[in-house]
């Protein structure tokens, strides 16, 4: 397995670049929109792919460029480019099942990797699943792509969410890279010093710890043993602001490399956001998945949801923006603190927004399974702004999801970052206004309570800032072919009431 991984990582490096994914999707987009012949449609992405490989090899000769390109590399992009993008764009005909061999292969490789790592481990016993990140992501994507063929949209969304939730929350301890990585995690667990700064893995630390990329929704670092990914966009923003720019300008190499890593991460997360926009909120975000469980509880009890008033909606958005900006400013002030950790007499914690973010309260509780840390690390900071903030926001999270579905997501600054890319980027919700009967079911089933899709009677692009692309409106629309979800010019889902009813 080591040999295979070596070969794969050697020859597939260009695939792990975000630019390859971006270029691939853009070329496919152009091929679908502009070209008519099938051969041309296939040829254009192929030409791009070859060109990119050539470029990558040439650029790799230069040490500085290679270093920058290397910082951006991530298996997530390779998986998206090889497994997910073809699954979206390939025509669903007779021959589609031959493509499914690829995700199946990814799953088999992942299982083989787990088995080989168990056999290779020097100590007998249960070490969870030791698996390399590349294999794990490929396997998860493979499972999701295969499951898509059997599940209806609603079930498929829940399945995706649950699968990703397991990886993001429990991945911190359940899917370590190898035996030494696992041992170091166990070692860190013994460190139970109450000072939050020392809990290196539960708290985001100011160093790059070989984790995967940031993703635009809220994959919380406060899940047990640090979760599986580096963190959310708010964590990254605060990280950049916490870098001491005086030192950077003085040429301190460690600080400069911190900045370089953070900027590379920002670039790759922007690519992900450009591709997925707020889709990450609707399908991936573990915070909203936990929130949906509260929502499910409400449905079980049989309460009808409350529709948030316009005032509540605007308050959520504005307070999200202002709290986010305020916390980023606090993060900047962290670089100005004195020896007692105080600025102008106030104690300022590292990652201030995380101290009030409900994710930091909810995710550790949800992933408590094997975590030996103090459940709620934010509690040490219970004073002033943070004390009120953490209680108010966690209350808002629970009550918001319990009563009126996703009102919390209007507040969420992590989601707002994705929302910037909702219009004009790759994903779009399209509407044929002439087919609309105005029934407003799109508003009724929308967890974000968006009215504009129902109201829009002229334009065809109805995607808006709040939309999380859960596609419930498309699934429930009673007019055939009225609403549709487009990804880079390709129609993925289309409202089809007749088909939905006939399939039971």
């Amino acid at each position, binding site marked *: 397995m080591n040999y295979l991984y070596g070969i794969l990582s050697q020859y597939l490096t260009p695939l792990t670049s975000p630019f390859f994914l971006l270029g691939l999707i853009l070329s496919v987009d152009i091929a679908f929109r502009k070209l008519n012949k099938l051969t041309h449609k296939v040829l254009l992405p192929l030409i791009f792919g070859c060109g990119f490989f050539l470029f990558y090899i040439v650029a790799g000769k230069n040490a500085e460029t290679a270093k920058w390109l290397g910082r951006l590399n991530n298996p997530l992009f390779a998986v998206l480019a090889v497994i997910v993008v073809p699954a979206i764009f390939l025509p669903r005909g007779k021959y589609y099942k031959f493509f499914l061999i690829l995700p199946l292969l990814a799953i088999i490789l992942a299982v083989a990797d787990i088995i080989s790592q168990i056999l290779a481990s020097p100590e007998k016993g249960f070490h969870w699943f030791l698996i390399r990140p590349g294999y794990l992501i490929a396997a998860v994507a493979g499972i999701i792509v295969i499951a898509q063929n059997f599940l209806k949209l609603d079930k498929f969304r829940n399945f995706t969410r649950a699968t990703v939730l397991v990886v993001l929350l429990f991945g911190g301890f359940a899917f370590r890279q190898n035996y030494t990585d696992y041992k170091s995690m166990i070692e860190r667990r013994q460190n139970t010093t109450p000072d939050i700064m020392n809990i290196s893995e539960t708290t985001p630390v100011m160093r790059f710890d070989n984790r995967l990329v940031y993703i635009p929704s809220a994959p919380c670092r406060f899940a047990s043993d640090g979760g599986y990914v580096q963190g959310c966009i708010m964590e990254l923003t605060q990280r950049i602001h916490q870098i001491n720019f005086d030192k950077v300008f003085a040429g301190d190499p460690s600080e400069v490399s911190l900045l370089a890593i953070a900027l590379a991460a920002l670039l790759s997360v922007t690519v992900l956001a450009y591709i997925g926009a707020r889709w990450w909120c609707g399908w991936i975000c573990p915070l909203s998945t936990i929130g949906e469980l509260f929502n499910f509880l409400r*449905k079980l009890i*049989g*309460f*009808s*949801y409350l*529709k948030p008033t316009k005032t509540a909606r605007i308050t959520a958005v504005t307070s999200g923006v202002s709290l986010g900006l305020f916390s980023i400013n606090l993060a900047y002030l962290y670089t100005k603190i004195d020896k007692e950790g105080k600025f102008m007499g106030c104690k300022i914690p590292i990652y201030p927004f995380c101290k009030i973010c409900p994710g930091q309260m909810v995710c550790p509780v949800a992933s408590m399974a094997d975590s030996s840390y103090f459940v709620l690390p934010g509690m040490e900071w219970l004073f002033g702004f943070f004390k009120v903030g953490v209680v108010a926001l966690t209350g808002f999270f629970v009550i918001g999801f319990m009563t009126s579905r996703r009102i919390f997501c209007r507040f969420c600054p992590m989601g707002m970052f994705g929302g910037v890319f909702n219009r004009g980027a790759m994903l779009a919700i399209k509407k044929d*206004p*002439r*087919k*609309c*009967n*105005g*029934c*407003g*079911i799109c*508003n*009724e*089933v929308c967890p974000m309570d968006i*009215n504009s899709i*129902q*109201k829009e*009677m002229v334009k065809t692009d109805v995607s808006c800032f709040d939309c999380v692309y859960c596609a*419930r409106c498309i699934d*429930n629309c*009673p007019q055939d072919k009225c609403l549709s979800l487009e990804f880079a010019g390709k129609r993925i889902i289309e409202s089809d*009431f*007749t088909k939905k*009813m*006939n399939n039971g």
Partner: protein
Amino acid sequence: MDKQFQDLYKLNQQFSENPGNLKKQRFIEDEQIRFQTDLPYRPSNMTYFENIMYNRDFSSGAKPRVGYFCNMIPQELIYAFGAQPVRLDCGNAAGALIGEEVLCGDICPLAKSSFGAFLNKNSIANSCDILILPTSCDAKRKMGEILNDIKPVFMLNLPPEQNHERFARQTYLEFLRLAEFLRKNLKLKLSGRNLRKYLKLGQQRSLLVREIQKIRTINPRALSMCDFFLIIQSSMFRPVDLEDWIEQTKIACDEIKRFKPPRKSLRTKLVLTGAPIIWPNYKVLNLFEECGADILADTLCTGAQSCFDPVISGEWTNGSILRALANRYVYASACPCFISQNTRINRILELVDETGAEGVVNYSLRLCQLFDIENYRIDQVLKSKKIPYINIRTDYSLEDREQLRVRIEAFLEIF
């Protein structure tokens, strides 16, 4: 619940003593029955729908009967209370004459005719226990007040504008009030299970209507529009077991799916829009049938459009379903009583595209100002799109049949 009407100046119920008129009503119905029986290519189980529609025994059944007007009243809700909804809009030309005895002469024949049924001792209208009317037009609004003397009446307040964002909650509260009225007057409880059951039955009905419409666009001769209207209206205008109805319609649907036309049809394909056409007033449909044109689709609140939009609820709680009912019955309505007529024009253009129809017919009921006024814009829009268009302005009376025939034949000469 707050009362909508005060019984301060209550009048007693009176019946019209005009046996000749009743005879005339029966004659008009018999004429239509005879016309429809002579149609070619009818599904074999048409008698089931005919038996429902032609039944003249109006004695109340086991279930309490709730009469309602217009397509904005949620049938599913009434079913869920264990009651039988019956739509009371009437299309009998002779009924309009006795309706005039109480209502003034210058209101639409639909209102007069529907009211005439209440003046008739043996009618389905009088067998109802309670009545529900929407405030869709002036005639309905005032008729509700008069009918309140006879039976308990609920007036469903509609928003003047189909602005979902602004009025959705108001409509929902109005529907809650309707549920409260039904509970008080029927002395029955709303059953959540029944509500879900009838929601699903309603969806199946829409699905069937859609399917038949789809078959008819390919093969219009498989089922004549008169029979299609009869099938749809038998599920609303008479007490019917919805499950049976769905089963029979499925059989009929299968049959017309297998229909093979003996030769190529050269009949003109048209889309019908405008005021409601209610059995036995199929005057216009009959004329088009006779003149050699097929109406493929309609936007009529008594035709395929009435069942075309299904009720879809995101969740299965009663509140959510009530909201879904409000959405479908008020916001998906193409009635001209709402401010904007965009929905209807969109629908007409969409149907023309979908069915490949060659022209559009607007049936505008004399004295219904709402449809009359909307007519102008539809005329202009269709003209700009180069779609042939005819406006047939008539009332229930059968006297102008031959004049209309001349007009329709002249219109069909275009194609």
